């Protein structure tokens, strides 16, 4: 293995013998391979996770201790209300990285290679999404852990928290398809990132993540009450604290289904479209 130097091209003759072409990989196999790639990227560029993890920790601590007293009497009481919402906000916010990652791969020419390979063509998208779901889970786990450390005590127990996290993952998976569309339309990863502020800021702040719906003026309640993020936060709180209104879950699932049904065909169309 040490014979090759980095300057000289070795003898390529031996490796150019044409063997039988292997059978085309199954769709599942190519998706798993590309999810493996996403894992490797997390391993090689752990700094990517910094953004994902540190911002929500900061948010949780700041909001709990600065606003907690004013909004709920004590920080300890406020964290019971806030934590499920912060979890929603964190994961919804990092869905943008689906678009950023895809855009980077396209600009770098990596998708040219993928698309010239004889595999099931949507594999790169699904493989990347699997990697993203792993990232969402990791960020979610960290937030929940920090929550426990500063006094979050969910009445719904372990299962309640798990179900809430799963519901958030379902919604974020659907939302990621929108970012795939944005990732394919934009020229640079930076513009994709900018889009996240335009789109995700209002979506997450015009919700009841930080304050209760009842405290808002009537017209705003009408808007905020219909925001899917509000529905998701409410469902997550209900699941975690064991006082769920089952319709909240259904609404989130309906929203996820609608977003997926609209975004996936558009995304796939763009994907097959020539660039």
């Amino acid at each position, binding site marked *: *293995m*040490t*014979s*090759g*130097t*980095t*300057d*000289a*091209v*070795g*003898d*390529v*003759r*031996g*490796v*150019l*013998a*044409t*063997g039988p*072409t*292997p*059978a*085309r*990989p199954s769709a599942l*196999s*190519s998706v798993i*391979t*590309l999810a*493996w*790639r996403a894992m*490797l*990227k997390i391993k*090689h*560029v752990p700094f990517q996770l910094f953004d994902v993890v540190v911002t929500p920790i900061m948010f949780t601590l700041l909001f709990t201790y600065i606003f907690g007293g004013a909004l709920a009497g004590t920080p300890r009481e406020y964290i019971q209300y806030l934590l499920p919402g912060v979890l929603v906000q964190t994961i919804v916010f990092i869905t943008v990285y689906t678009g950023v990652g895809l855009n980077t*791969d396209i600009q*770098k*020419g*990596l998708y*040219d*290679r*993928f*698309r*010239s*390979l*004889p*595999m099931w063509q949507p*594999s790169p998208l699904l493989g990347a999404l699997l990697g993203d779901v792993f990232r969402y889970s990791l960020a979610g786990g960290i937030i929940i852990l920090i929550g426990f450390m500063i006094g979050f005590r969910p009445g719904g127990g372990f299962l309640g928290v798990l179900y809430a996290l799963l519901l958030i993952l379902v919604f974020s998976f659907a939302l990621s398809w929108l970012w795939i569309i944005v990732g394919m339309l934009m020229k640079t990863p930076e513009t994709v990132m900018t889009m996240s502020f335009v789109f995700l800021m209002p979506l997450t702040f015009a919700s009841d993540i930080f304050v209760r719906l009842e405290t808002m003026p009537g017209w705003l309640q009408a808007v905020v009450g219909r925001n899917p993020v509000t529905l998701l936060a409410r469902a997550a709180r209900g699941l975690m604290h064991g006082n769920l209104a089952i319709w909240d879950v259904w609404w989130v699932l309906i929203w996820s289904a609608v977003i997926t049904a609209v975004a996936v065909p558009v995304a796939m169309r763009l994907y097959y479209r*020539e*660039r």
Partner: protein
Amino acid sequence: MTNAIETCGLVKTFGETRALGGLELTVREGSVYGLLGPNGAGKTTTIRILATLLAPDEGTATVAGLDVVRQADAVRRKVGLTGQYASVDEDLTGTENLILVGRLLGLSWASARRRAAELLDAFGLSEAAGRQVRTYSGGMRRRIDIAASLVTVPEILFLDEPTTGLDPRGRNQVWDLVRRIAAEGTTVLLTTQYLDEADRLAERLAVIDHGRVIAEGTSRELKASVGANAVHIRLADANQSDAARTTIARVLGDSVLPGSDALVIAARLSSTAQAAEVLAALTQAKVEVAEFSVGTPSLDEVFLALTGKPSESPSAEAER
């Protein structure tokens, strides 16, 4: 012998821009074929259509006898593509990149790993195998990129400007590699803006301008079409350029080739004896000549003669 690539009347438009305007191309099996042309001539568009990344608006193309639109999946099993930009994942190591491609081509994990090691060794990259590709030099990056196109040996290999941005040593390595790949029976279609590259590597070439083939043949044939012999003169003083051109025109008639450099003049000769007349006339006109040589015209001059404008400067591009 059958043809590896055949296109018929390829047209591709992007918005207002007509990238290809009826491109006709025939590439024999087992050869190195060069597509030569300036930026925006349609070289990359041609490669992308042939590698099934783009569908043509009009016309047909077959690769290894398969239609690139209707049989795209079958074409993908026969071709390898190394794009203009390194189409490998910079965050991954060399080994991981090759395993990734191997897996996506249908190799088992074990075979993909074995094949990766084999290729890295053959491409002189085994020492860098465990390093992220972002730490590689330009030449190493291009080699891992070409290696990724050879994980399963394709019948036809597309190389889009394989040496753009490489230093002379990196360029020589890639040339060496392309020759060896072709010697093993793979058809190579490469695009280039470098005239000497096409001259050295390709058995046949097509000169492309505005999405059409404006000349086709071996480099010898192309040179012959401009004139068998040419005189190349480098002046010592750019101010004497006009005087020199007038003098040469008086001796040779209308055979001065258009050029972009005031110091360099090239002209067609109908016989080598005319060279002596030119030199004598220049001496008499007191034009100072720094260099004087007689030979076949360079591809640069061929391109100028065919299109009437100079090709892109390779040195400026290499700085990118």
